[in-house]
């Protein structure tokens, strides 16, 4: 089959690889009908996350049609049209039983790579480094999905692929980030980053009762989406003297009740701290540019909630003292998609949520490297590139 493979920093190629097959009894094989880029992919494409290997098939946000079924799969059937969260979860361990799916104990076959870093290994991810299991990714014609009965979600009839694809990662990640904020009716939530995850976090904050949502970014087309598609207010951080002052003024001097970071380790910013981060990261002296996160910490009201969705490594200059003195609650996780998908599919089916506007650009699989280039450089207003592998 054809698949998009990582071959080194900023070196993606579409190559011919072996077809996947059923390996374990709870596996299914999916014919991928649509997959999409994710900002977190850019971190290993740019070389900031270790344990990729040349030739790895990438891609973790996808949907498709079931074409082969392992012998112990009970619910999923051949021909089912399903969407699959990016984390592989067994459904049986203590963490899965407690809705902490991305912390699953049983799906990382290379736990020994991750254990020294994290203390305890997490769930595996499709196409996202060997520390996260080394599973082949989904920017491919076919993908193997382990633990299908836990991880495959049937798509209700009548929905288009574009409406459903982002339920694989961007929507549940954003929704979880808003869920973390313990939103009371009328609360103000500020979200750094108006990409797929950030926009979905904003939409989710409204669904969960927020009175005001403020999106922060610098790309006009993304800010426009936040205003027009989500109903948020926006701040272009490149055009104001101080995001903090703006947020303070917009909230009567209190600050937002909750701040969501949907940016991650390659944040952009202005001023001295950003210059420091940029220089150190370029020299690989540290892994993270944390300007957005630091800003969110300072902007949050006293006693508020900081919800971190961006992907980070090990950041220096992390202002824990600010968090402590302001009494902030920090909530963070990789997405527990399996917890949220039934509810989110219902929202989409009822028309309360339509993430399809994120899919600004469509490519065949053969053009996927160009898709990533556009996505990374945000050319032509690209928010998400989607691929049609078959």
């Amino acid at each position, binding site marked *: 089959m054809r*698949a998009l*493979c990582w*071959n*080194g*920093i900023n*070196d993606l*190629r579409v*190559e*011919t*690889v*072996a*077809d*996947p*097959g059923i*390996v*374990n*009894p*709870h596996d299914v094989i999916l014919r991928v009908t649509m997959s999409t880029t994710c900002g977190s992919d850019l971190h290993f494409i740019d*070389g*900031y*996350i*270790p*344990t*990729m*290997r*040349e*030739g*790895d*098939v990438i891609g973790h946000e996808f949907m498709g049609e079931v074409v082969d079924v392992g012998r*112990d799969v009970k619910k999923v059937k051949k021909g089912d049209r399903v969407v699959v969260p990016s984390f592989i979860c*067994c*459904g*049986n*361990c*203590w963490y899965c*039983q407690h809705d902490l799916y991305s912390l699953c104990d*049983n*799906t*990382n*076959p290379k*736990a*020994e*790579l991750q*254990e*020294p*870093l994290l203390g305890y290994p997490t769930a*595996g991810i499709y196409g996202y480094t060997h520390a996260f*299991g*080394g*599973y082949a990714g989904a920017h*491919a014609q076919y993908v*193997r999905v*382990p*633990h299908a009965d836990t991880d495959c979600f049937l798509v209700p009839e009548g929905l288009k692929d574009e409406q459903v694809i982002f339920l694989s990662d961007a929507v549940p990640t954003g929704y979880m980030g808003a869920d973390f904020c313990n939103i009371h009716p009328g609360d103000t939530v500020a979200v750094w980053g108006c990409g797929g995850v950030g926009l979905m976090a904003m939409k989710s904050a409204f669904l969960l009762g927020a009175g005001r949502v403020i999106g922060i970014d610098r790309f006009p087309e993304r800010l426009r989406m936040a205003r027009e598609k989500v109903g948020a207010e926006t701040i272009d951080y490149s055009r104001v003297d101080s995001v903090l002052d703006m947020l303070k003024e917009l909230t009567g001097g209190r600050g937002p009740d909750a701040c969501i970071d949907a940016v991650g380790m390659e944040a952009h910013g202005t001023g001295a701290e950003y210059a420091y981060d940029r220089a150190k990261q370029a020299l*690989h*002296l*540290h*892994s993270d540019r944390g300007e957005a996160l630091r800003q969110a910490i300072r902007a949050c009201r006293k006693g508020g909630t900081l919800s971190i969705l961006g992907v980070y*490594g*090990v950041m220096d200059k992390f202002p824990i003292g600010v968090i402590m003195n302001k009494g902030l609650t920090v909530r963070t996780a990789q997405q527990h998609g399996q917890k949220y998908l039934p509810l989110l599919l219902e929202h989409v089916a009822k028309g309360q949520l339509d993430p399809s506007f994120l899919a600004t650009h469509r490519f065949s699989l053969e053009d996927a490297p160009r898709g990533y280039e556009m996505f990374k450089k945000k050319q032509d207003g690209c928010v998400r590139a989607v691929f049609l592998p078959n």
Partner: protein
Amino acid sequence: MADKPQESSAPRSPRATRAAPPRGPSPEWEGRDIETAGVREDRDVEPRGGRATAAGASPGIVEQFASAVLGGALLSIGLGRRSLGGAALALAGGGLLFRSFGGQGHGPILEEPRFDTDRGPYEPEVVAGPRVLERSITIQKPASELYRAWRLAENLTKVMGHFADVTTAGPDVQHWRVQGPLGRSLEWDSHIVEEHPGEFLRWESLKGADVPNDGWVRFRPAPGDWGTVVTLRFRFDPPGGVIGDAVVKLLGAVPDTLASKALRRFKSLVETGEIPTTVPNPAARGGGHSY
């Protein structure tokens, strides 16, 4: 953690154990309090790098983290450059990664020769005594069910699959075959020497083993709704001479993660009915298949 008693007053001596194998129940089975296992781990970690800091984290972890990130970055840059300089960068990065991911001296691996620990700093090259590997894991199943699963020959074969070919050689006798150094395989038969259904199982290699060894597995209730704490211990007693040296090297390289990996495989098998794997896995290397 800081106020937990040190166990230095009552160490168990492997030499004594070897000289006089216990009759009747093992002391490991009789010690019923799970928390005592934690205390013993504290002591076992100590010789490697002193007690953990007051915050509970070893400073080495930070260095490991830094090595991993930096190593990964260098590796990636190096691989990306495709030149001699790039290769050197990649090698440097790989070295750091290796270091950070357990190439040497991390974690409570417990393979120390216990009677050597008062002789000064740990040096893997001078290991001369038995290699002890002990790890615990918590599994979402009752102890009785886990015990039964462990006793099934086909399960043991799967659980040890990363390390050895284990086949049934008779009632309660298993044949172990490990790909050893110098192109030679190491083989032994082991038999069950102590059994407390639902709680404890101990085995020993029979006479003529290439690497004399013994081990036990223990099942104890975990707090709350966590299920059962399973502790697995292997002890290898490599022979002397050239082969012995090579075996020590092999045991230094392979089984650092032997106990933890076997437990992880067992856990996945009993909790989910399968062991996670990426073999085979589509990739643009190794003829289209990799892992």
